[in-house]
């Protein structure tokens, strides 16, 4: 009732004009791909999918492997995991504060710029700057950093549990045989937790596609930081472009379809084993 009917209705509307009164076929989709703002949002979401997913997965894995070898693992785990509990809205406030900008020469109250100026660099308006690093503005990366800060704890927790469930004798045996730590990781840990890495990455891809709150509060999608979900909100409630908004959401669904397939296949396999 809350998902099925609306999804079908959304699909229907995506084939109609901007106020859903006339059937226009695929015109809205054509407009999505032709319009500069929506193109930008799609490209940025692509960046999110790749960079956010990649960095969060790797960092989570790295921390999970490292904390296995120290006695204060619980403390690090709790600290890294903590941001999971708070809202993206609060995180957005926290990171806007970190990125606070004053011109060079004035006292900096934003931590990022204070660090920069202390090291002798000029201060930098991180959330506004479109200064390009490969194809994207640095401000996109600044928002993604906040998302990584929030989500790494999730990846770390899942990986850490996966690593602990491995037979410890196996790891010990390899170490006794003189294997270096990175060899133990690469040849034993990595292959055996590959399925877990896969699951975490798909979860992260989906959340990258749907990211909204963080962009909405941190930049409002201005200065070329827009993403699909935020663009959709704008098209829907600011421009009343229902055709484009719904077309965007259908595109979002299609991008996440592979994950639906994976989920169902995995479930089928589990059921057979039951």
């Amino acid at each position, binding site marked *: 009732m809350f*998902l099925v009917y609306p999804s079908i209705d959304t699909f229907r509307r995506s084939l109609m004009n901007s*106020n859903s009164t006339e059937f226009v076929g695929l015109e809205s989709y054509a407009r999505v791909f032709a319009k500069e703002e929506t193109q930008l949002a799609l490209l940025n979401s692509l960046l999110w999918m790749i960079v956010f997913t990649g960095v969060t997965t790797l960092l989570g894995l790295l921390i999970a492997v490292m904390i296995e070898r120290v006695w204060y693992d619980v403390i690090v785990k709790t600290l890294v995991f903590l941001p999971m509990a708070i809202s993206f809205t609060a995180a957005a406030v926290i990171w806007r504060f970190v990125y606070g900008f004053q011109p060079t020469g004035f006292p900096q109250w934003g931590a990022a710029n204070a660090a920069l100026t202390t090291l002798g660099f000029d201060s930098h308006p991180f959330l506004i700057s479109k200064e390009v690093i490969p194809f994207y503005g640095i401000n996109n990366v600044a928002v993604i950093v906040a998302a990584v800060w929030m989500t790494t704890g999730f990846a770390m927790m899942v990986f850490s549990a996966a690593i602990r469930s491995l037979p410890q004798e196996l790891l010990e045996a390899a170490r006794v045989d003189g294997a270096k730590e990175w060899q133990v990781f690469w040849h034993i840990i990595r292959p055996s937790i590959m399925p877990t890495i896969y699951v975490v990455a798909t979860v992260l891809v989906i959340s990258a596609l749907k990211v909204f709150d963080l962009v909405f*509060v941190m930049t409002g999608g201005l200065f070329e930081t827009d993403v699909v979900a935020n663009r959709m909100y704008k098209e829907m409630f600011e421009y009343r472009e229902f055709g484009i908004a719904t077309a965007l959401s259908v595109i979002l669904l299609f991008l996440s379809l592979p994950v639906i397939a994976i989920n169902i296949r995995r479930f089928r396999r589990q059921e057979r084993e039951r």
Partner: protein
Amino acid sequence: MRLQPDTRIQRVIRAASRGPLHLALIAIALLWTFPSVGLLVSSFRPKLNVATSGWWTAFQLPFEFTLENYAFVLFRRGVGDSFVSSILITVPATFLTILVAAFAAFAFAWMSFRLRDFLFFFVIALLVVPLQMTLIPLLNLLGFFKLNATYLGIWLVHMGFGLPFAVFLLRNFFAALPREMLEASQVDGASSRVVFFKIVLPLSTPALASLAIFMFLWIWNDLLVALIFLGGSPELVPGILPPVSADRGPLTLTIASLVSSRGADWELLTAAAFVSMVLPLAVFFALQRYFVRGLLTGGLRG
């Protein structure tokens, strides 16, 4: 290969070689704590200090801290009302979701009916339907029943979005319960209802607890649903009736609007943000074990 006992020198070398590891971990721990501590410290500093110096300078004499920021946002900027509103939204919605999900999960796990497996696949497929797919039609639907911008309306919406995950998690837990026990009690003449309330629910407390934490955090931390179904401008959507109640939105909504209206008043923003973090953090610390367990069995919602 035979293990050589460590000499003292070897042990020292090994400890030293682990130096970078400790350094990296401590750096990570600091990096992850630093932003939140900055927020917390700033929320207790006077306006002028926040705007002119970094929060890390607050720890030198003279110490200047104040509770004024909190008093101001709580009573003059509606953050106090929003706190109440967040609770009024989150608690019933969490309860409703779990109740309905538990019934459905029980049916999926232990009753046989036509199309059962098909329907359950369907629920799993729904796990990944992006919320955004459903917004406009749902808004119209709620408008049709005159439920827009009402508590009942937003409870139902949150329940709708939370159910697939909740049913999925609970069904898997219920299905793993020992079959003999359930069958034995049915042989003894217990009805499905008795089995559900007297056996299945008490046995499932851990699963119910982790689900409750998940739902609580999702709903408390949600901005999108609140923005669309409570705040924003509902009159923009064709076919929508005017809002029934003009209650204050939840904390996320209030903070988002504070950011756009008073984005430079950091002493207020930091205090408001911290108010919104208090309850989730308390829940998190109190019930971390259940939270992690739920995370590991269920994964994140879509």
